[in-house]
């Protein structure tokens, strides 16, 4: 597709369940980001992938959060044993080239009940 695609767009899950959020970046983009935005808050960095380099995981809030990027394209963000404070919009973005523009998807809205 032309833009960054995220799925699901909405997810309601029970506390303690695991969830997986998917991101399809713009074709050819080598860099991929995950951010979290809680209601009325700013964007919080989670993790950054760039090509074959080791990802920058410095923003992951706990060991319940993990992400992988397969084949340098699609990425999955996994949250294990979800808690109510994990409720937020999870945004994915991608960038092509060293000085490219960074484009965001529409986000995955996660509600933990």
């Amino acid at each position, binding site marked *: 597709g032309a833009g*960054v695609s995220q799925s699901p767009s909405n997810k309601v899950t029970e506390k303690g369940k695991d969830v997986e959020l998917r991101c399809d970046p713009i074709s050819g983009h080598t*860099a991929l*980001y995950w*951010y979290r935005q809680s209601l009325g*808050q*700013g*964007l919080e*960095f989670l993790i*950054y992938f*760039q090509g074959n*380099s080791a990802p*920058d995981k410095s*923003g992951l809030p706990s060991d319940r959060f993990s992400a992988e990027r397969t084949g340098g394209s699609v990425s999955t963000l996994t949250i294990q044993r979800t808690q109510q404070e994990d409720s937020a919009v999870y*945004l994915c*973005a991608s*960038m092509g080239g060293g*000085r490219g*523009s*960074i*484009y*965001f*998807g*529409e*986000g995955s809205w996660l509600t933990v009940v």
Partner: protein
Amino acid sequence: EDQVTQSPEALRLQEGESSSLNCSYTVSGLRGLFWYRQDPGKGPEFLFTLYSAGEEKEKERLKATLTKKESFLHITAPKPEDSATYLCAVQSHGSSNTGKLIFGQGTTLQVKP
């Protein structure tokens, strides 16, 4: 530590009343400064990237400028459809920064007809 501060937090304008939004930053070597527009329930929409002091970019009623300490987003003769939250973010060359964007808290603009 890289920091981004946006002001004001909220701005109300009458249609046609021009104004400016401010983004002050401190980084260990600026790689790029990004402006985004975010509508409620949507992902951030890319507007501009600025790379060096003195650079300016324009798009319709928006003009972004950059100095060594801050960036301004000038809105000329705004229309109600310009109402949104405007986000500023920086990407630095610092050793602790692998390419992630550091976001400000945003300025919420409301333009009344």
